[in-house]
């Protein structure tokens, strides 16, 4: 039961990652690309969690937490760089 749901989850999240990649390549503005990268990281977190359920291990959840933190910090830094031309003034 869970195995079928996990297969569906892997397929759906991987398709979502491919669509984010399309937006990352095509995106007309810089902010589109920042948004695409941020969404890719969130989708990767979902993928890591599904993998953790499949392997029955909590080992990878710390890496998911680290990815969430770095995604937030890098997005804020990138927006600030696009706004001000500088990260730390």
């Amino acid at each position, binding site marked *: 039961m869970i195995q079928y749901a996990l297969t569906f989850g*892997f397929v759906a999240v991987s398709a979502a990652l491919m669509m984010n990649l399309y937006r990352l390549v095509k995106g007309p503005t810089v902010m589109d690309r920042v948004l695409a990268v941020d969404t890719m990281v969130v989708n990767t*977190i979902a993928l890591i969690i599904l993998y953790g359920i499949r392997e029955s291990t*909590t080992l990878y959840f710390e890496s998911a937490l680290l990815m969430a933190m770095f995604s937030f910090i890098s997005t804020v830094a990138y927006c600030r760089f696009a706004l001000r031309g500088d990260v730390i003034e």
Partner: protein
Amino acid sequence: MHDRFEILIAIHIVIGAFFVFVGSFGLVKLPSLMSRLHGPSKATTLGVGGCLIASMLHFGALEGRVSIQEMLITFFLFITAPVTAHFIAKAHLHAEVDPESELPPDEGRYGWSTFATMPEVRMASRESRSASGDRLES
């Protein structure tokens, strides 16, 4: 009991993966960046929340060990998603949008707050400009 929890976990995984997919589909299909922001900041966050609930149920009910990392990831994602969307929208407004022609007028005294200077500074600059004979902005 075991089977019921398995069905519940499977439902949460399917709903979460579906909403992750919907968020990225919105990122591809919607026309402008301001509408594209809705997909990742709402649907994808909900989808990851569904996957995290499934993981919590799996480790708590089926294996009998409570893991705290899912709670941390959930709180962190649900707090940072609106902040990220706000930052991207603000950077987009300043980079791509002309505030005079592309934004609707607002009812307040100072215009859109992200484009407004502080009121005292703006009044002072208006006085200095009217003193030097420049055209007042409406």
